[in-house]
């Protein structure tokens, strides 16, 4: 009897836990903060997002972000709040500005450069191969004469 009661109590607690978790994930503010925090870097564990990190600073920053959001600040305001204190490093998406032009446009520039090199090599090869195949008019006439013999 006591074993059964205990088992039932465990199941009841587990269900209550699930129900609570459900309620928490359905909160739109939580969802918004989660989305925002997955785009922000934790400065202590630098390869983790603010959403994932267990560092005490990350917890403090999440608290700060929540308070700002509750006070009605927009996502951009919150990002600016963090950038003012920690620099662009907190952003997983670096902003496009003169200092980051190379970062954003560099890969496209390299792609373009590669395309130009490829195209010029291809064109030269084609020129060479047609040179080799196309016989001069004289040689062609000679060949035709030989064939007609």
């Amino acid at each position, binding site marked *: 009897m006591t074993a059964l009661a205990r088992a039932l109590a465990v199941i009841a607690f587990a269900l209550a836990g699930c129900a609570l978790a459900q309620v928490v994930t359905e909160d739109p503010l939580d969802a918004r903060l989660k989305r925002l925090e997955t785009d922000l870097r934790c400065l202590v564990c630098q390869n983790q997002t603010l959403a994932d990190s267990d560092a*005490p600073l990350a917890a403090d920053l999440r608290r700060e972000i929540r308070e700002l959001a509750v006070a009605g600040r927009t996502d951009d305001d919150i990002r600016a709040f963090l950038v*003012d204190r*920690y*620099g662009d490093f907190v952003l997983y998406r670096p902003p496009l500005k003169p200092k980051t032009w190379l970062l954003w446009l560099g890969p496209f520039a390299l792609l373009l450069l590669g395309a130009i090199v490829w195209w010029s090599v291809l064109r030269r090869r084609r020129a060479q191969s047609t040179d080799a195949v196309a016989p001069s008019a004289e040689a062609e006439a000679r060949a035709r004469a030989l064939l007609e013999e």
Partner: protein
Amino acid sequence: MRRLRWLVPLGIFVVLLGFLGVGLTRDPREVPSPLVGKPAPAFALAQLHDPTRKLGTTDLRGQVWLLNVWASWCVSCRVEHPLLLQLAKAKLVPVIGLDYKDKPEEGKAWLVSEGDPYTTSIMDIDGRVGIDWGVYGVPETFVIDKNGVIRYKQIGPVTVDALQQTILPLVRELQRS
């Protein structure tokens, strides 16, 4: 000219190697602070040894001062501590200690056992002032000029080199101006 064309990829490779080599010498944990050159974020915090009294950025206007962020739980704070004690003895510049996210009793006990290099210690129990100052790795040390502008930030323990080659010359220069 054509014969030297094999030098082009070699050149690119050497340049790339150079960039990567320089990258190896830099510490990715040191994130340059955007606050250097900007007015120090204002605070008024209760003092560690006398919580009824406050110390704030406005009280420190008109002088060059250092803000050293420390905590009793911070392991690498012990590394720089002897140096801070020496600096305190030399009385070159006031050093304000920001006891960051610490229990006041533990902070006080730590200063008793290790020695107290601070002109005044203030408490940032919930870490809000730390966030305003962009603190992310204790210990950190800031140099603030007479107008209340942050002029330098040391991330991690103060070293003899950093103190003698950067911090003290900067303090002297700022004190003269």
